[in-house]
């Protein structure tokens, strides 16, 4: 099923098990229907689908922000609980607190858990270092560019070193070139410190460049339409994304086209 090809074994990370998950909102809108998903510890999973298919809802359930209406969600052996240090969610928008410095924003998860000042600062600086934002320590979010804000948000998600990282289209507001650079950086971060990652995205290319496996969701209410394994060697570069990558892309696009007839990917022939 999942093909993990990298130098170190996938030991760090949390197993995610989703069984028969359904989410219905108070208004009666059904966001997710009967989703079942098994994610191996240390693997990188991309969830792809059009707007409104419930991708973000799935992540909010996994982060413990939203209770399932039906079914079960387990991280390791327990249901998700916000703030227990096992999971971080990076949102589509950076969501930085405007009156806090970059350092204090990044350190926020530690602040909320009463970590002493010295250690807080040390770890926040290390996290900022990892995303290349060391110089922005004392600046406020307003003084950062869009890309820098997104980096800060990523540093905030990484500071607790969570075994499960949830990414909700974290780079979708960036321009295409910056976004590719971020994807490359995300790959590097993951190869350096492997952990379970679930990335929600609109971009087939991004999913292929990063993931071990691509989960294609149907339109609302979201269900799993197909899972496509990405058996490409790492580290991936554009050179490496040759014929095999093309095959995977076609498989994903065909699935998208079949579950969203007329909506998407008109250039797939079949």
């Amino acid at each position, binding site marked *: 099923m999942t093909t993990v090809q990298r130098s170190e074994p996938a030991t760090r990370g949390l197993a995610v098990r989703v069984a028969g998950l359904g989410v219905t909102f108070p208004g009666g809108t059904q966001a997710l229907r009967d989703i079942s998903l098994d994610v191996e510890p240390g693997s990188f999973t991309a969830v792809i689908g059009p707007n409104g298919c419930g991708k973000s809802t799935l992540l909010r359930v996994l982060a413990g*922000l939203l209770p399932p209406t039906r079914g079960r969600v387990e991280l390791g052996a327990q249901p998700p609980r*916000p*703030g227990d240090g096992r999971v971080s969610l990076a949102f589509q928008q950076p*969501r930085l607190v405007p009156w806090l410095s970059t350092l204090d924003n990044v350190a*926020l*998860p530690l602040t*909320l*858990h009463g970590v002493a000042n010295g250690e807080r600062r040390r770890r926040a600086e290390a996290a900022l270092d990892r995303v290349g934002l060391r110089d922005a320590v004392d600046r*406020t979010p307003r003084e950062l560019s869009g890309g820098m804000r997104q980096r800060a948000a990523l540093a905030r998600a990484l500071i607790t070193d969570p075994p499960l990282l949830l990414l909700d289209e974290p780079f979708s507001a960036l321009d295409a070139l910056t976004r590719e650079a971020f994807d490359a950086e995300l790959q590097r971060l993951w190869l350096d410190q492997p952990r379970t990652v679930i990335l929600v995205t609109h971009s087939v290319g991004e999913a292929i460049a990063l993931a071990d496996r691509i989960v294609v969701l149907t339109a609302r209410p979201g269900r799993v339409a197909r899972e496509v394994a990405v058996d490409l060697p790492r580290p991936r570069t554009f050179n490496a994304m040759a014929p095999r990558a093309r095959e995977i892309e076609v498989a994903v696009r065909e699935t998208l086209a079949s579950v969203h007839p007329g909506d998407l990917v008109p250039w797939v022939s079949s």
Partner: protein
Amino acid sequence: MGVIVRRIGAGILSLAAFLVAWKLITVIGDLPDFILPPPEAVVQRGLRAITTGTLATHTGVTLVEIILGFAVGALTAIATGIALGKSVLIERVLSPYIVAAQAVPILALAPLLDIWFGGGLLARVLICALIVFFPIAIATMVGIRSTDPLLAEMLRSLGATPRQLILRLEIPSALPVIFGGLRVGVTLAVIGAVVAEWAGASSGLGVLINIANQGLFDTPLMFVALTTLAVIGLAFYGLVVLAERRLVAH
């Protein structure tokens, strides 16, 4: 530096213009002192009140009432405003009473409150606090409600407790609006102290106004008391603005 000098210059100019206009009105209207005393008569009367110690005594009493009344009123208003902002149920239950209390003229209620609470400092502080309460409570409620829900969700995803949510997000993001309420509230505290004194007190600037106005027909003395109240109001307003500049970063 130049900016500060210009600002002070503008302040002095506007004060001078105000005094000249005042003087002109008394001269052109040929008004007697008990209708509208000219500025210099008020200054003379003020100096006399200062040297005899009258002004200091009454001002001290009123200052204590304003400070305590504002403190009590602002703190309960902020606490109430947070509760109103957080809970629709609490707002539904409490807001009719709060609005009704605000709509009832405090001038009419003050004598009753004075009797209920023993006619001492406590009664006056409560009357003052009651006047201060409304704008600050409403501002706090509006401010708390304007918290960015995306930031709130982010904090919850980090495991923030309800208390941390209030202290680290909702109050800081409501602060600019709360300070709007505090600015209004602090000037109302001055009025509140005077109204409370009118309801039954033996000293204070409000009492001094009554003595001067109704007892002695000493209009210049009344203007001395009014000017003192105005200066107190300006000073406290300035303090609130200063606190706002220090606390509100954005």
